[in-house]
């Protein structure tokens, strides 16, 4: 068996040699965001253009590659989704943003042949107007620490040799050939790694508990059923560096003495499914997964399973039920998966990012890992930064980074509804998705970690960050998330199934202007009853957006209820239709379109709208060329 063991060093060396024979590399981001923006067309255009110039382009770096002029690769998500499609040029490190197929000509002529950047394609900071040629100088990247995402966006996720050439699977090799399970558990415990799926449970402790269980069979499950609206960290990692995830799974399996793993990937992530499947197949073919891993007497089998399309399947007991072919419904804990998990066997179930963090801990040692982050939340965290912010995208920062740094330095500041930077526009940020809560102005300088965020009533969660500007109605925010959890409740326990439905109905009352003092009182009571009494994490955290907005924006709820007014002007039912006299030219366009005859006025004189007759269909506002009609 020893002879058959894969020689990582040799594979890596051969890849590096082949790679060294080509001077320049062009990496086109093929993450979901950039693909949606047309990056595959950019890739094709570049290939055509390079070939048209009699340059030798290498798309697949074979073993027998004896050089070429340009290595053209696709990568996973490079993070800066806002500016996609992204193209990176090595060795210079030029970053081109918003690249279109027709830019291929300039890129080839000016950069590949002319050895200089294409100035019109480099990133310009909208706030300062400054240009940045290279990735690492762009403010969006400069403040980040891309550790887990380190290879994501830089390597070809479909080429196992490139991963190996960058020390890939070395940590797994050590775990299988040089470390005892107990040692691995101790190392992970010492690193202080905490679960990135939302709960923040110490990973080492979870592994140690599962290792302690005596059983003929154990399982590792990688939870890739990322479902929070606006979250795409796990997707990007699975798409961008699938082998990193698989390596983490192998180490986890070794640590608990399991020989079989399931990777449960959301079916709505076809690219992640495809890349993970390919990575598993490649790792099997390379002799990394399978019998006698790295010449040891341990076996390792990895299955890829597509999710069942339900948010609740991200809950670990529901996820296991789903793998077993049952309806994805959570069951009461205890027993915990560590004692009785998949098919009743001890099981470790970790999130994608958690497992993705494992190889580097084994490679660098727990002590070095702890150099980043805070004492109780070591390491880095990826976030999906979205909403009313200049730079949306996938970011990674050490724990302890403040919200201000994330939103204003990396994110480039808050934008208004017209998309312009608004330095006073920040209102709140929703952290942790539908299970989380909002952080507000007073939290901007709070160092973000598991414990500090929890104190505010929110959770770090899996890493969704939705920035909201002053035009956001916080009751509507609560309503949005409530509707989500209500739809996604599995329907098993009473508080979650019926409670979320009634909370949504109460929020509807507020938004529709039917709320009374009793609505607010009942909403608060019900939220607590759902929070305390629900069976699983979905229900227990479902009221968080309501409780958190009630805590920080109670006055907004009260304005809706007592003054029948939406301070952000978003709730249609509460808006008062009005034609602003200064803007109205008296053209009569609105008057002619109004289906109920609610608008009156003489030609060339400001018109009026009868609020009682108006049905708020909005037709008049669409007809008006002067933005004179509000509140419809």
């Amino acid at each position, binding site marked *: 068996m020893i002879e058959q063991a894969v020689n990582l060093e040799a594979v890596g060396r051969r890849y590096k040699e082949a790679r060294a024979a080509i001077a320049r590399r062009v990496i086109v981001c093929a993450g979901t965001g950039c693909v949606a923006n047309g990056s595959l067309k950019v890739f094709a255009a570049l290939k055509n253009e390079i070939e048209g110039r009699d340059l030798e382009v290498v798309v697949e770096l074979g073993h027998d590659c004896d050089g070429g002029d340009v290595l053209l690769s696709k990568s996973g998500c490079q993070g800066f989704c806002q500016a996609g499609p992204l193209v990176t040029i090595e060795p210079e490190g030029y970053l081109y943003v918003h690249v279109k197929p027709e830019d291929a000509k300039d890129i080839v002529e000016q950069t590949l042949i002319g050895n200089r950047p294409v100035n019109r394609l480099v990133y310009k900071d909208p706030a300062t107007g400054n240009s940045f040629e290279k990735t690492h100088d762009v403010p969006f990247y400069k403040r980040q620490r891309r550790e887990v995402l380190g290879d994501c966006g830089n390597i070809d996720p479909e080429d196992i040799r490139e991963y190996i050439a960058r020390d890939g699977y070395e940590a797994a090799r050590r775990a299988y050939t040089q470390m005892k399970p107990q040692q691995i558990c101790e190392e992970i415990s010492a690193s202080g790694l905490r679960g990135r799926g939302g709960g923040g449970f110490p990973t080492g402790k979870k592994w140690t508990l599962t290792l302690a269980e005596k059983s003929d069979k154990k399982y590792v499950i990688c939870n890739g059923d990322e479902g929070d609206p606006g979250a795409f960290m796990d997707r990007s990692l699975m798409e961008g560096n699938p082998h990193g995830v698989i390596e983490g799974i192998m180490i986890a399996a070794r640590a608990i003495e399991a020989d079989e793993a399931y990777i449960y990937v959301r079916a709505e992530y076809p690219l992640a499914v495809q890349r993970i499947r390919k990575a598993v197949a490649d790792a099997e073919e390379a002799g990394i997964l399978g019998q006698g891993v790295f010449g040891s007497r341990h076996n390792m089998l990895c299955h890829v399973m597509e999710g069942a399309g339900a948010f609740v399947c991200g809950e670990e007991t529901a996820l296991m039920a789903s793998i077993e072919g049952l309806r994805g419904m959570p069951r009461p804990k205890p027993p915990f998966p560590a004692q009785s998990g998949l098919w009743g066997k001890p099981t470790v179930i970790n999130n994608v990012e958690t497992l993705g963090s494992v190889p580097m801990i084994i490679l660098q040692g727990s002590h070095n890992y702890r150099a980043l982050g805070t004492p109780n939340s070591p390491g880095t965290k990826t976030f999906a930064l979205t909403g009313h912010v200049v730079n949306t995208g996938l970011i990674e920062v050490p724990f302890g980074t403040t919200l201000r740094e994330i939103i204003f330095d990396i994110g480039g500041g808050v934008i208004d509804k017209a998309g312009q930077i608004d330095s006073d526009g920040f209102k709140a940020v929703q952290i942790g998705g539908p299970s989380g809560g909002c952080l507000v102005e007073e939290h901007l300088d709070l160092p973000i970690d598991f414990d500090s965020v929890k104190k505010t009533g929110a959770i770090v969660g899996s890493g969704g960050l939705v920035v909201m500007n002053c035009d956001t109605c916080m009751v509507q925010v609560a309503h949005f998330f409530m509707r989500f959890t*209500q739809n996604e409740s599995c329907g098993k326990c*009473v508080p979650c199934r019926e409670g979320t439905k009634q909370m949504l*109905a109460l929020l509807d009352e507020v938004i529709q202007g039917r709320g009374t003092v009793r609505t607010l009182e009942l909403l608060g009571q019900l939220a607590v009853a759902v929070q305390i009494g629900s069976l699983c994490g979905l229900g227990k955290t479902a009221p968080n957006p309501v409780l958190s907005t009630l805590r920080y924006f109670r006055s907004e709820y009260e304005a809706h209820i007592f003054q029948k007014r939406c301070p952000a002007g978003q709730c249609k039912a509460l808006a008062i239709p009005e034609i602003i006299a200064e803007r109205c030219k008296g053209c009569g366009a609105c008057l002619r379109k109004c289906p109920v005859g609610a608008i009156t006025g003489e030609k060339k004189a400001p018109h009026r709208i009868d609020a009682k007759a108006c049905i708020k269909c909005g037709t008049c506002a669409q007809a008006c060329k002067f933005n004179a009609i509000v509140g419809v």
Partner: protein
Amino acid sequence: MNNGTRVQIDGRDIRIEGERNLLELIRKANIDLPTFCYHSDLSIYGACRLCIVDIEGMGVVTSCTTLPKPGMKVKTNTAQLRSMRKMYLELLLANHHQGCATCVKNDGCKLNELAMRMGVTEVRFQPAQGAKPLDTSNPSLVRDPNKCILCGDCVRACHEIQGVGAIDFAYRGAATTVAPAFGKDLSEVDCVYCGLCASVCPTGAITPKLQIDQVWDALSNEKKTVVVQIAPAVRVALGEMFGLEPGVVTTGKIVAALKMLGFDKVYDTSFAADLTVLEEANEFLMRKTQGERLPQFTSCCPAWVKYAEQYCSDLLPNVSTCRSPQQMFGSLAKATLPKMLNVAREDLVVVSIMPCTAKKFEAQRPEFRTAAGPDVDFVLTTQEFGKMIRQAGIQFNNLTPESLDLPLGFKTGAGVIFGTTGGVSEAVLRYAHEKLTGVRVDNVDFSEVRGMQGTRVKQIKLGEVDLKLAIVHGLKNAKAVVEEIRAGTCDYDFIEVMACPGGCIAGAGQPVSFESDTKQLRAQGLYDCDKTLQLHKSQENPYVAKCYETTLGEIGGHCAHELLHTGYKSRKRVADEGFSVLEPGAAKALEISVCVGTSCYLRGSQQLLQKLVGHVKDRDLEDTVDVRATFCFEACDKGPSLKIGDTLIHHCTFDMVRAELESQLAGSVAS
């Protein structure tokens, strides 16, 4: 005080004595925590959240899902817990059909009871919008999703106890509902109508289908002579509807009540049970002597019979051909009573009072009707009978007992114990013992076959003959025995199967009881009843003997077979005939059906179908051969399955079907 094995519950120390969960320990402390979804016979579900308690250091948890640990300090009745429980009940009530006064379950609704107990005086939440349609598709049960509180008791009972799984959850969030697969009606799926779902349902979401009005109509019709048979298990349970303890035998009062309701004659199904014993034991001894079709399964439970027809078609020859006592009574009554009572057959109405919902289905089976109509016209459950007594205002407890009518009202103890698990076996043993030894036996009790264990295997020596019996109740247990037989790992001679755990005494038509000792008390009632009767062996029933003399001839003879026996048919699970995938044309000589059900599909039946269609078109056979896509040949593990003409091919490949097609075409040309 030593707290090593104790839990403090509301300030009192309670000793842990092997309780499976905190809820059971709390109940032992004489605190009846409310719950909808906890049943000691079912898996722990933890969904209704009413059994919440506050444990020091743990906070609010559900007691049904928590293991009692020594030293725990538990509070069951804090202000927070009270308000949460009330709120959950309010939430359930908001989503619940509001017509309590007209609900058939209003005398036994747990939601109603708990709402009252917890002091819910208003519902502050919005009521559910829109009504969901009722499922009244079958003769036994009515499903009303508007009354369902989604506790899942029915789903788990059907799956875990009966191994049928006819219903499950569908959809999610507030749209969650309990329904048969693909939103079908119960009559279209594998439901065996045992009604276990109805008996565990805390509300009126699944209830036995009522025939009270039809029976009132018959009773009011002066032209009709209405006779009634009462099943053994009814007499030990009906009293519960009038405040009596379970197991109290009220046969005499039942007769009086039935007479007051207007029934012309009151007979006893136990008479027919005595007949069953003779026929079934005789059949068994023949098989045992000849060594064929063993083990013999009993056939008195209609839910089991339907189950066997659905899932055990390979073992149908092993099922006793005896009709159930209800149907033996029905055919005998319709054959003999018109003359005896001087009434036209079409004016004779036979009603049965049964502990069972599946009996309603059984009475409507085509095998049990003649051109003149069904042998048993109407089947009332014990519950319905109780409701009729109430409707008539009869003060049941004050009635003076009356006696059953002869001859069909005379029974032995053997016919009475039929109503509990082990009863049929014991009754048969009482006959077989004497038959095999030729010696009269005075001690008739075979107490070794009694009990409540789900599967009981007993070896009994009767004279020189060794018999191995299996007594099972709960169809999941039956399934396990069937698997043993198929695997050839057992050598039973006789297998008694009852679908309901406990037997007929715990049937779904009985008064609803959530008490744990009800079954034992009712069973004891039947055994006591046996003791108080003069005769204990079916073969000693003089009226049964006379019946053979005058009507039936020999035991197991031709006439007995006509009236007392039946046959079974395999019930294909999938009713659809499939559809043609070729252009419809004139009647085609040869039909090829390819299963495109899930299992065969996964094994490549779709590709097989496509190739086959291509082949038929290439060969210009479209006018001769019809290719159909169909669903399920019930050999899912052997797929892809394909039927060509009358030949069923498993693990079918394209080459196999092509070869068979050629040979069949050649055959048809030759002929």
